[in-house]
């Protein structure tokens, strides 16, 4: 279980968030959704130790940690594949830097390539494949971290709608098949509704949780479900209310 309490971060005397508190239960898919510039990426920076928090506690599995830099895997909107390495070599980077046995890691990576629909693309360079393929490879790399917690910062927002759909089902695999605990940022309400177990609506800066919505369990979800549509309607109203509040 990931738990964050009283987290505060200030840039130039302006609090990005102050006393931010959030709990993500193990093997759940938590999604943060909020207006852009509200501090979501800064929150992840604090979580991963890229920038220190001013105050607050982070704990993972019941014990306090400074940050999650060596406990969480991370996936970004950009695929962050190194152009000089093949897709397979890229996916093996966490194994290399982690000093794992490369032979075993390679076997595992090749299996993941085929599981995520990248069969036969192991030797391709990143620029030789589509954006969707690259993001799949980034997903393989994320899994190769071997870390229970996965942080996703708008991982699919650079992709076109159709590619995004197929990648969304792969994100669900992270939870159902690979037992990861997921914390994802998105600004796509539909995506959030399809993937989340726990959906957190965030306010504008200074960021705080406006509302936590627990969604029903069965996934994959479809938008012809009236329950989901009803939830979507509430969320849209809340988000719009927030926008009115700003202007």
């Amino acid at each position, binding site marked *: 279980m990931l738990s964050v309490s009283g987290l505060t971060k200030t840039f130039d005397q302006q609090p990005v968030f102050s006393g931010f508190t959030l709990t993500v239960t193990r093997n759940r898919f938590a999604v943060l959704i909020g207006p852009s510039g509200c501090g979501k990426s800064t929150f992840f*920076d604090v979580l*991963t*130790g*890229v920038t220190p928090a001013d105050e607050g506690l982070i704990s993972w599995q019941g014990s306090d940690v400074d940050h999650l*830099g*060596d406990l*969480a*895997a*991370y996936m*970004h909107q*950009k695929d*962050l594949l*190194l*152009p*000089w390495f093949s897709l397979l070599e890229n996916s093996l*980077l*966490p194994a*290399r*830097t*982690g000093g794992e046995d490369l032979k075993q890691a390679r076997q595992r990576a090749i299996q993941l390539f085929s599981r995520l629909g990248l069969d036969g693309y192991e030797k391709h*360079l990143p*620029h*030789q494949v589509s954006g969707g393929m690259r993001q799949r490879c980034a997903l393989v790399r994320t899994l190769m*971290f071997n870390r229970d917690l996965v942080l996703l910062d708008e991982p699919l927002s650079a992709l076109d709608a159709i590619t995004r759909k197929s990648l969304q089902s792969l994100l669900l695999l992270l939870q159902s098949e690979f037992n990861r605990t997921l914390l994802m940022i998105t600004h796509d309400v539909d995506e959030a509704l399809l993937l989340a177990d726990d959906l957190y609506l965030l306010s504008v800066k200074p960021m705080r949780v406006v509302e936590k919505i627990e969604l029903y369990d069965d996934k994959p979800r479809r938008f012809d479900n009236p329950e989901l549509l009803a939830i979507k309607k509430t969320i849209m109203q809340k988000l719009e209310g927030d926008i009115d509040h700003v202007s």
Partner: protein
Amino acid sequence: MSRSNLLAFGILVLVLGLWEATCRIFAIPIFILPPPLIIAQTAVLKAPLILPHALTTGMEIVCGIGLALAVAIPLAMGMFAWPWLEKALSPFLVVSQAIPVFALAPLLVVWLGYGMAGKILMAAIIIFFPVTVSLLEGFKSCDREFRVLFRLMGAGFWQTMRLLYWPWALPHFFAGLRVGVTVATIGAVIGEWVGAQKGLGYLMIQANARLKVDLVFAAILWLSLMGLLLWFGVGWLEKKSIHWKENQQIL
């Protein structure tokens, strides 16, 4: 041949043709300005004389490159790894650029004598600066998100250097090296002018004193060809080491 290549070739032929014609029409003596054909002839026929000198100059430049890289690469890495080191050294780097290196040539003869050492040092000093600065810039230009990724993967500095920063900075490195080797050729020759026992610069001074102007030009021709060779050599090395970019252009 592309249009621009054709034009370049045309201009070359035109200039050489005009030169040749001027020399013949006005019957300019060879010891004032020899025509291109004579120069080419001298460059070929006197090859046994010129070659050892060319080898010396080439050796000086290559050793100069080696020496410069041996200092520049660790220094750029160090300044990148420790920002305080960069802060401390960058004023010196800037000031060192204000010194006209060519003006050091006579001093280098006093300190290091008439041999190759002074010329090697001269070439090295010239190459050192652009390589160090551009390599450091290259390291620094690495995107923040990639650094964060490597941090999260738990990669140490040297591992990140090898897997990320170094390949990232390669295009910058080669841009600096290209600038460096071109100027280094001039540096080595000036070093030889001031005081040497061998080398194309030495040959030029000797030939000039004896009014063998065709030999002076022949030496310049050899020097130019060596410069071109270096330029393309660096370009070839660049293509080889940045293979992923080359592929990108093909696609």
